[in-house]
């Protein structure tokens, strides 16, 4: 038996996975180098078994759950944006379809008259509303601020 053969089995012997058979046991008894290697492997085995197990840091669970909630919130937001984009695309497709239908079916001429009618009505409406426009703008700004604060507060709560 050569040392290489015995050395190949040393880790398995030290781990207790293999019981050295006659030849290996004999070699390990007679060869000081291999015996020393086996002793080293056994010491290593003991040291590895006695390695300290670092416990998870305090607050690990709460920090993990907070991270999970953040990830969930981001994923929900991503879904919301996706849904909004899909709705906008659908509306655009719908209007494009209607416009093409109107153009192809000869309803265009009729629709032009309708546009003229609504156009003149719109101009009259704007003239009437113009003096109160700053008031409407202020109300719209207030509403936007309220919505903004609500969104901000909800985002913090979700985190």
């Amino acid at each position, binding site marked *: 038996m050569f040392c290489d053969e015995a050395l190949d089995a*040393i*880790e*398995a012997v*030290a*781990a207790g*996975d293999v019981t050295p058979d006659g030849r290996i046991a004999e070699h390990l008894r007679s060869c000081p180098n291999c015996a020393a*290697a086996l002793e*080293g*492997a056994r*010491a*290593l*085995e003991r*040291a*590895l*078994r*006695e*390695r*300290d*197990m*670092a*416990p*998870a*840091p305090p607050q*690990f*669970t709460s*920090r*993990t*759950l907070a*991270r*999970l909630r953040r*990830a969930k919130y981001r994923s929900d937001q991503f879904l919301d944006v996706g849904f909004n984009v899909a709705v906008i695309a659908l509306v655009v497709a719908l209007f494009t379809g209607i416009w093409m239908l109107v153009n192809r079916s000869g309803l265009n001429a009729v629709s032009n008259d309708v546009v003229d009618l609504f156009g003149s009505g719109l101009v009259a409406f704007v003239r009437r509303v113009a003096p109160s426009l700053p008031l409407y703008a202020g109300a719209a700004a207030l509403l936007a601020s309220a919505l903004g604060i609500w969104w901000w507060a909800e985002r913090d709560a979700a985190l």
Partner: protein
Amino acid sequence: MEAVNERELVERCRSGDERAFQELVDRYKDLVYALIARTVQDRSRAEDLSQEVFLRVHRGLPYFRGEARLSTWIYRIVANVCVQEFGKPATVSFDAEKPTHQQAAPDRQFGDLELRDRLEKAIARLPPHYRLLVAAHYLEGMRYEDLADALQQPLGTIKTQLYRAKQQLRRMLETEFK
């Protein structure tokens, strides 16, 4: 953990019960963190990666079929997270030079402490895959069979790789870290 309790816990997590998931994190956090902290030297990175493992567990729970033990499945996720981490270039950390083991008890012999210190340095020099195997095998409950199941490799391959890892460690301790 008993198989029935484990299945029940998984079912509760699947139904969106946050307390159940909290319980799952509490049960496995020490195992996951210890495993990663033994593989990645930087403590804060180890915590970050451990959290990432639980995020993946949460995402994957609906697809967990219960064929393997929960701990084995979690270990598989740990292995994937570590493999991804090892693929990245190393980052500089102020924690990198700290020893990975906790403060030892004062009554331990100096020789023992010194061997542990040398051992940690030698382990840090092992290839990442070997480091993970050594870390996992010597944690409670991680048998050869569990490792083979988690890494989806034959039992013989796992044993051979572990023997080679320990052989490398022994040689490093006998030469470079003597």
